[in-house]
């Protein structure tokens, strides 16, 4: 049936996009040579039993009861490498090879969230300099 064969984003294996960086699963993807959709399950809700101590501290600092916006952050894969998408710079932040990847997406997501917060809160983050250049107040 038209449409259903184009999904291409069904995640079958946690290492799917590490083993196959192109990830061209559907006929439509093969036709256009481009992966369609996310390289992770955007609808996966977090398992709070897997929170890291750093994330717990961050959430407390902000006065929240849960991960808040980080519920939408997942570990993705860019060019066959694990990475997390930083919406503030519109780019991927790669996870270094030295960090061992857990065997499940929930723990990987927690690592991605922690890495992203550490990067965004660093004074080396590009937003710091962008703010210097463009801030209005």
């Amino acid at each position, binding site marked *: 049936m038209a449409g259903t064969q184009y999904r291409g984003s069904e995640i079958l294996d946690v290492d799917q996009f590490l083993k196959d960086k192109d990830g061209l699963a559907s006929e439509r993807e093969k036709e256009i040579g481009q992966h369609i959709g996310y390289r992770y399950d955007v609808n996966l809700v977090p398992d709070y039993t897997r929170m890291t101590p750093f994330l717990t501290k961050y959430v407390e600092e902000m006065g929240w009861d849960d991960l*808040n916006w980080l519920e939408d952050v997942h570990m993705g894969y860019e060019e066959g490498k694990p990475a997390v998408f930083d919406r503030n710079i519109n780019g991927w932040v790669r996870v270094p090879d030295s960090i061992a990847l857990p065997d499940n997406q929930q723990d990987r997501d927690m690592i991605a969230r922690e890495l992203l917060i550490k990067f965004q809160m660093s004074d080396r983050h590009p937003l*710091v300099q962008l703010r210097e*250049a463009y801030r209005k107040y």
Partner: protein
Amino acid sequence: MESMSVMASDMGYDPRAGKTRDEIEGTTQEDRARDLGMMSEQLKNRSMEVFFEVGEEENLIYPYADKVDFNKRTELDCEGKPTTQVNKDIRALMEEGYGTIVLKNPRGMHSVGVGILNKLNLIIEGSIGYFGVGLIDGPNVRIKGRVGWSCAENMMSGTVLIEKNAGSTFGAAMRGGDLVCRGSVGSRTGIDQKGGTIIVGGDTGAFSGFMMQRGRMIVCGNAGKNLGDSMYDGTIYVGGEVQDYGVDAVQAEMTDLDKAWLTRKLTQYDLLPEKGVDHFTKIVAGKMLWNYDNLEPNEKKLIL
């Protein structure tokens, strides 16, 4: 501590080559943009590498954010002040370190509390008008009255809790955080939602979740016509009746993880129904609208 390399593509400059604050303030905005490599002709085929050490410091707020203390509390009377002045006053109080600000007499003021990019407890004692607390990134806002159209539009993070009802396009283009209305909301709730969680204690109007792309919406009551119309992704949970579904919105099976997350989220805001969450319906995108282009004439026929 281990050194960590991070690469973000297509940014086109190295922030380590930045100038000192005095040097930056002595130049025009155009010069600053050029120095940072932000001119469009320089962005092609370039990438950026930023190296930082995970343990070099442990900041939990943005480096440029004001250091505010939740225990430092003050009140701000909106009576007779234009919105711009109220928003400037909020910023000035945050610069002074106030972490809890109570707004008195908002009297349906439009665009109040917008653009707060820091942690803060903002308590609004009354109702506000259109575009309230939009474009926020971090604060916890509690509104004790009603809100008009497009409350928390483009919200990035934080929590917004409304005690009474809300107007249409509630949480439009929202990107992150929790947006909660204890009462009922108008139509087009979460239109173009790109992340975050919208929770409605009562009912929601027609075309809720229209063109939703990511994120989650929980409606404890009933949903109006065309729920989730043209949604691309994301999840909608409805506790009551759905008048009808929009194009490409389909029911999905609730998992144990869904139920645990729903229970946790609704408990947080004291909205958990007595009968729990087992009766909720989960709605997702059928993804028939994905990659909709002129190469797919059959699909067009099917949808239109």
